[in-house]
Each structure stands twice: as C-alpha cells, then as structure tokens.
C-alpha cells in the first residue's frame, strides 16, 4: 500500500503546485488592486467611497463557491452577447480568487490606514505634501507593518479557499486526489479514499502551518515595537 501511495505522490504534488500557483498569482494581483480600493473606501468623495464599498461588500458577501460557479458558468452567457469568449477553469478560478481576495485586502488596508494616528497626516499636510506624497512617503510605509500579519492570514485563507475549485474540474489538490482515488478503484480495485484524503490533509497542513506561524511571529514582533 505504501508503494501505491508513493507512486501517486508526484501526481498529488502537481495538484498542490496548481493550488499554490493560483493562490500566489491571485494574492499578488489582489494586493495591486486591493490597496487602491481600500484607499478609495476612505475617500471623502461620496461616489468614490460608495463604489469601493459596493465592490467590497459584494465580493466579500457572496460565498466563494457561488461567485466561482457564477463566473465559470453564468458569466460566459452574458459575455457571449458582446465577444465570443470562453472562460477556462484556471481563468475562472483566478478571477474569483482575485475578486474575493482584493475585497478582503481592501478591508485590511482600510483598517491599517485607519489605525495610523491622524497626526501623521496632519504633519504631511503641514509640510505641503499632496495626497499621493503623503500616502507614499508617510502613511503606507507605516501601514504595511500593521497589515502584514492579517495579509499573511488572508493568503492562508486563500490557499485553503482554492480547495473548492474541484467543483469546476480545476486540477487543484482535492480534484487531483479524487482522480487518484477513481483511478485506483478502476485499475487496482482498491478503495483508498481515507488514505488519499489523509495525504491531502497533510499536504494542506504542510502548506498552511508555516504561514500561520509566520503570521504569529510578525504579530509578536509588531507588538514589541509599539511600546
């Protein structure tokens, strides 16, 4: 039995690689999108603030699985009116991840920018800095320290969230595990569900536990620097 598991391990690791790739790519794009949206949420202009709020509430409020199914199945039907487009599994997964993660990242950015005392902004205004200079040189460098632990937590949640991709046949770890189980039943007549799922749980644990510890480590370091 052990050699059966060892034989299938490269296939399972390929699934883990897919999970990791879509999570990292999604996180990077989400950070690029999330910071502006989080800052828009804090804007004084009503329409800017409302549209950021709408985006955040919708993509945080809809369950991940629902937005994934909607973007993979229903969106192409709407888009077919304008362009001839098919959305592949990886693209649908990536799009859902980006939307969900950027909404959550915007909330984290908003929280950390609000945590910085207003005196810093006042000092920037007193020095005659524009909004962008204030953000770039004073506020955001300080906010990055505050938002690091929650962002690592968000990345961990994203890694675990991609697990639902099996429902649209995206070849991430769980789908790959299910394919392995089906193959083993067909080829060797053994039902190895529990063993394969145990390996899947172990692989996810190995991916996420270091990140959890990293986030806790940064949180402790941040608390030390404050007082």
């Amino acid at each position: 039995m052990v050699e059966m598991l060892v034989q299938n391990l490269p296939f399972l690791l390929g699934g883990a690689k897919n999970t990791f790739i879509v999570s990292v790519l999604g996180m990077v794009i989400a950070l690029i999108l999330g910071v502006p949206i989080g800052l828009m949420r804090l804007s004084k202009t009503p329409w800017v603030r409302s549209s950021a709020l709408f985006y955040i509430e919708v993509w945080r409020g809809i369950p991940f699985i629902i937005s994934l199914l909607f973007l993979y199945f229903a969106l192409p039907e709407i888009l077919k009116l304008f362009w001839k487009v098919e959305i592949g599994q990886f693209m649908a997964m990536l799009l859902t991840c980006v939307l969900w993660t950027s909404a959550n990242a915007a909330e984290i950015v908003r929280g950390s920018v609000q945590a910085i005392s207003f005196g810093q902004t006042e000092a920037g205004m007193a020095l005659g800095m524009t909004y962008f200079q204030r953000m770039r040189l004073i506020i955001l460098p300080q906010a990055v320290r505050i938002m690091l632990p929650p962002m690592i937590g968000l990345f961990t949640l994203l890694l675990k969230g991609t697990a639902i991709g099996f429902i649209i046949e995206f070849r991430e770890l769980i789908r790959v595990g299910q394919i392995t189980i089906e193959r083993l039943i067909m080829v060797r007549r053994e039902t190895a569900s529990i063993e394969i799922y145990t390996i899947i749980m172990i692989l996810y644990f190995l991916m996420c536990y270091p990140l959890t510890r990293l986030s806790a480590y940064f949180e402790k370091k941040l608390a030390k620097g404050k007082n």
Partner: protein
Amino acid sequence: MHFDIQVIIKTIPYLTRGLLNTLLLAFVGIILSSVLALVCTPLRMSQNRFLKIVFSIYIDIFRNTPIVAQIFYLYFALPLIGIKVSAFGCGLIALVLHYNAYNIEVLRSGMETVPMGLHEAGMALGFTHIQRLRLVILPLALRISLPALVNNYVSLLKNTALVSIIGVVELTFVAQDVIADKFNYLEMYATIAVVYLVLIFGLTWFLREVESRYAIVT
C-alpha cells in the same frame, strides 16, 4: 442570452426547502459551535498537559486545512469509526468542529483580556474555579470577543454553501440540481447569489445590533 423569470418562480418551492436547510445549518451551527467553544476554552487553557496537547493538535489541524477537505474527510471517516449520520449531520459536525477551533482561539484571547483583578475578586468571594468561570470570567470574555465572534458567525453562514458537496439539500445544491435538469445557469446562480447577499446582510445587521448592545470595547 435570455433571462427567464418564470423558471425561477416555478422552482421557488424547491428553493425554499434549500433555504430552510441553509438557515437551519447556519443557526444550529452558530449555537453549537459557540456552546462548544465556551466549554472547550477553559479546557484549552488548563494546566493539564494532556488537555493542552490534545487541544493544540485539534486547533492546529482544523485551522490549517481547508473546510472542504475536512467535510470530505469526516464524510468518509465517521462511518468507519461507527458514527452513522446523514449527510446533513456530517456537514453540521464538520462546520461545528471547524468553527469551534476558530471560536476557541477568539474566546481565549478574550479571556486573556479579562483583568486579573476579576479572578482575584472571585477568589476572594470564595468561588470555586468553575463558579469563577461561569459567573464572572466567561460572560465578560464572551462580550469582549463578540466582534471577532460575529465575523466567524458570518463566515459560517457563507460556508454552509460548501456542505452541498456531500449532498445536503441546501441552497447551492438546489441550484445545481435544477441546472442539471434545465441548464439555466444564469437564472439560478444569479438568484442564489442575491439570496446569499440578502442573508449575509441580514445576519450582519442583526449581529451588529447585538454587538452594539452587548460588546465591551477595551
């Protein structure tokens, strides 16, 4: 592209059945996971080394693996150790165990925020350890950690959608079932997206009201 309201209206009875299951799963899950967390957090913080190790392992496993993997694992593993439950029961158990782990951590940090003076006051009044916890510490810890717990509750409501993967007849399952018959992706997924948004906003509004009355901000 066509959007057929008639189809949605015809499936409203089936959707209602799924909605009731979703709400049942969410509310029972919230209550059970909170009660379980209230029981388990003092155990987690006890001095007993065995309890500390058991709970550390439990919390680490359930916080670092996806809830999807946990649902599948419990669905296959529970019958093997003799616990025969329906898919609904299995989904409920998976949700409760998963969110119990998160709630224990939240409640633990709430308990650590309670000032030492209250422990000493309880001891001075002659309370036993359990009486101190039940009458003084836990009510306060619960109110302190209410905002974080509210986040977990809303997350639980959103993740009830995931138990459809083992066949529980809840909202997502109903949508996929109807689509398997009639192929009306756009209508069904748009409808349940709206329903979920309404549920989430409703629950969030209600819990924020509760929070504004009972939460203590330190």
